[in-house]
């Protein structure tokens, strides 16, 4: 029966069980990933956000929470235009983060 609303699935993340190896590897390659303050400037400017919900802030958060599928979905429309880098108040090299994550996904199992 459709009531026009439904229960959303639980979004609880059990941090003890999350595999954050990819995030740690990312931080080893680009230490700037740890300095994100989550201000959302990148989300606001992203060219791809309206197409795949891309946002570097969300990308880093999802990686830390082990939401690998979300990350992959987000990244499919990124055009590497560099707007996120240009607006980042922390001067994080976001394009390197994006390219590194795309590369590291070679070893992630169960890709879409």
């Amino acid at each position: 029966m459709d009531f026009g609303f439904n229960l959303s699935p639980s979004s609880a993340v059990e941090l003890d069980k999350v595999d954050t190896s990819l995030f740690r590897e990312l931080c080893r390659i680009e230490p700037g990933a740890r300095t994100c303050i989550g201000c959302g400037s990148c989300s606001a400017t992203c060219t791809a956000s309206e197409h795949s919900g891309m946002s570097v802030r969300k990308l880093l958060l999802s990686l830390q929470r082990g939401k690998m599928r979300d990350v992959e979905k987000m990244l499919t429309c990124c055009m590497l235009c560099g707007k996120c880098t240009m607006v980042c108040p922390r001067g994080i090299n976001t394009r390197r983060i994006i390219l590194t994550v795309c590369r590291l996904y070679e070893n992630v199992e169960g890709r879409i």
Partner: protein
Amino acid sequence: MIERMSFPFHPFVLPFLIGMSFVLIYCLYGIVKILVQLTRDERRRFLLSLIKPSTAWKNIKDIFLNCLLHVKLWKRNRMLGFMHSSIAFGWFMIIVLGHVEVMLFLPDRVHLLYYPIFFNFFVAETESTIGGAVLFFLMDFFLLVILTGIVLAMVKRVRSRIFGMRRTTRASFLDTVGLYSLWAIFPLRLLSESFTAHISGGSFLTVPMNWIFRQFLGNDLYYLPTWWAYSIALGIFMAVLPFTRYMHIPAEMMLIPMRNAGLRIMHPRKGFARVQVLSCPGCGVCIDACPMSARKENLKDCTVYLNRQIRRGNEPRIEEISDKCLLCGKCTEVCQVGVDGPALRLAQRSMRKYGINQHYNIIDPEGYIGALGSAKVLYFAGCMTHLTPGIKKSVLSVLDKAGVRYSVMDPDGGLCCGRPMMMAGRWEQTRELIRLNTSIIKASGCDTLLLSCPICYRIFAQKYRLDGIRVVHHSVFFNELSRQGRLAVKRDPELRLAYHDPCELGRGCGIYDEPREAVSAAGVLVEGEKNREESICCGGSLGSITLSYEKRRDITLKSLMNMKAGSPDAIITACPLCSSTFGHYSDIPVKDIAELLDSKS
């Protein structure tokens, strides 16, 4: 002139003969290998270009001017040009004249590879003729020219600044061996020819030296060891040549015809790329030119070291250097050989495998097409201009003032042009973005595509196939408007303006004059210390993937210092990324050309 020996051979020629045969076989093998690595289409194009008269003539001209006379180096610095061309051209002339001598005096010996080189050892002069005297004079003259070059080369090792070079390449071990053997060849040749000058004849250099030496050396025993030493020096040089930077001598003769045939680098190591890498003479002109040399730790990330690492097969370093580069293209601009460092790096980047490959199927171009107007001029602001709204506003305002009817392609943000993807070496994604944008532009029915970002402009102008739609950068378009009188710009004779050439617009597309003209219409144009082809990247480039933003600070500051050489009141640029990057550090106003024209009209 008669042959002095009963048999035209002496064991001392062996080191030279072995070295020479080795180089010839190696080069022949190299040529075959490179031809095999080319694709069928490239190979056909290359071989056809060799027999086509116009390209064949261009090849000969370019080889003569670049390999022998080093015209580009002369333009850079006369001392540097003289040093290189004296050695290259002098040596070439000695070889040619050596052959002329043999053909003139002992024509049946010309097939012996070593004979023209060691001519003076094998012959005895019976009568002096005017022809012989002229030839001997020329031989001595060119030997003197080479020796001057060698002395200059030695001076350059200690005082490179005299030659306009702040930094030079750090030579590897084999390069040093090659260098010292090269330096040894010509003094040894002078000595050995002097020692035998009373038998074989000589000219203004060798005859007096022969006389001096004979004053205190009692017998003729010393001349054979000298000829041996000369041959050994040649032999060592030839033997190490394929493994040193001196490989550029044969490789450049291959590079020039291949470039004239229009080949492009497709694979980072094979085919044309291999020729490019081998053609690098390791002179180090690109070290000073590289904007990254503002930081000492990045000195070894310029093209000359990339080429060296590729030759060594040092994969981690190749990756590191390829990713760090800003792709400003200055190394190619100053390179006397024209080694395309950015293209090598792009090819290297394109070899990567990614776990996530972007695809833009879900993007529907109809959504963008619906928002288009019907004007003949279509303005595409691009990502970078969207982040510098002042520039976008000024562009639209100038268009209004000039009465140009326009529509905006991306009023609320559009797609990326594809150039940043291309700079990451991801051709497939680039092609997809090009396809999407092309369909939007064609649907608009415009006849002019106006861009305010050089990054977009470069790819639209060079990679898009827009069938008759004119692609124009705003600096060029506004200059036209101002010349036609449609845009009245008030000139302020007190205002000093320095124009910064964005890499993508200047070196990338060769647009230097129109922006300058537009700036001159609004104020007094002053130049930075390095300008036009040699302008310094602002440091903001999207070309670099790994260079962090705090490290780019020094590059920006260096570039700013350069711009302030003429003590301008404001820095004008034609790129939103440059203006934003400079804006962070500059103490004088930084404006886009559109903002300047808007404020003065």
